[in-house]
């Protein structure tokens, strides 16, 4: 990997992770992270949309004047999301049914128009694809981690209903870590999503400051700017 691609990739996955640092797309993140499989499904769909919307925006950057770029991006993203929706309906029907309204709502994920505006609009197609892939995978990773946390705490299982994503053989993937687990309702309900996300953000900040050689006290509270706190 060329250094530029490497930094684009690390940037999207870690430095400005959509869910944990930029805090964009929180609505689907909180709503769909009940299980690993739901999170993975939405994460992959969002990644697909990001890759193709970034590619389309990058390709059109020569013909779009600044004053019409936003409506054009909205058109592009809406088309890509609808195409993704149709494809999922055709090939992953059961998953599509489970994710329901959150598939068309990918349109409203600010991370997508954000990457179009901040990156794809001023970069060549290949780096733009890479940026979409990295951002999407970063989002997907957050969804899967949060899903794992909530599924494990809430139901004592992992990868339940994996057949929704992987077809029939996926049904064997379910792991019941604790037999006769009574269930922990808080983790399944929406408040559990907030607690889980808070824990993940704290964990990411801790690791980030450790790697940067700072003490955790100076860690940055998840914000859009990654400039070290001067306080």
């Amino acid at each position: 990997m060329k250094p530029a691609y490497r930094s684009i990739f690390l940037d999207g996955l870690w430095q400005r992770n959509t869910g944990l640092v930029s805090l964009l797309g929180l609505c689907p993140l909180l709503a769909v992270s009940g299980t690993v499989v739901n999170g993975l499904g939405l994460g992959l769909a969002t990644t697909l949309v990001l890759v193709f919307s970034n590619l389309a925006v990058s390709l059109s950057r020569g013909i779009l004047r600044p004053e019409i770029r936003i409506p054009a991006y909205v058109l592009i993203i809406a088309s890509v999301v609808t195409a993704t929706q149709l494809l999922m309906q055709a090939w992953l029907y059961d998953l599509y049914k489970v994710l329901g309204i959150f598939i068309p709502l990918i349109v409203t994920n600010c991370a997508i128009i954000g990457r179009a505006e901040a990156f794809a609009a001023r970069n060549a197609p290949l780096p733009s694809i890479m940026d979409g892939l990295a951002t999407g995978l970063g989002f997907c990773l957050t969804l899967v981690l949060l899903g794992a946390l909530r599924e494990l705490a809430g139901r004592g299982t992992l990868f339940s209903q994996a057949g929704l994503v992987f077809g029939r053989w996926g049904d064997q993937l379910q792991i019941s870590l604790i037999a006769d687990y009574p269930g922990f309702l808080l983790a399944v309900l929406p408040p559990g999503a907030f607690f889980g996300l808070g824990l993940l953000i704290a964990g990411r900040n801790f690791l980030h400051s450790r790697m940067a050689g700072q003490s955790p006290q100076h860690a940055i509270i998840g914000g859009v700017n990654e400039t070290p706190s001067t306080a």
Partner: protein
Amino acid sequence: MDSKQPGGSTGHAWRSALALGLVALIGTALLAGIQQLTRKRIEAQERRAVLAQLGQLVAADRYDNALHDDRFTFTDNRWFPGGREVTVYRARLHGEAVAAVLKLVAPGGYNGDIHMLVGINADGTLTGVRVTAHKETPGLGDALETARSHWILGFSGRSLSDPQPSGWAVRRDGGVFDQFTGATITPRAVVMAVRQALEYFSANKEMLFAQPAEPGNP
């Protein structure tokens, strides 16, 4: 090139409009193409999903007609107020009525409508009941789902005479059906809807099986 005064010349405006139109055109063409490519498959998937649900209520070896297509949809405000649509799927063997599955919406859940399938044999006994979509509270009301509890399976084999009409209610209301721990409203809505479906069936059985099929949207 990037002039800072928008609308400075009509030439720019025209070019912008053209560019936007082009984007819209490409997007529409792409979607039309993908829709054409996926249409057949999506229809097949929807059909498979509906048949899988119906199959839980009427075993495939009990009928020989096209269960999915032998259906019609109606509204009847006397029985199902509020203009709620009911779809009836008819199972027949050698042309004889075997069972009907009513796809209906139970009002009065704790958290909105409960979408259900109620399967009824020609003799008026229930083949079973399934909930296909609901918004009840996770951990409490969702014991409706077969994956969470066997409560819903308790309807199989029941009819208007088993229990007697006064028993067609949840325990708290003096009936024979359990409520689940911490949730009375959800099971009450389901029990009422099932009873209603049975009463409707017994009053309109001839019509339900005689009505010609009208395949439309599933």
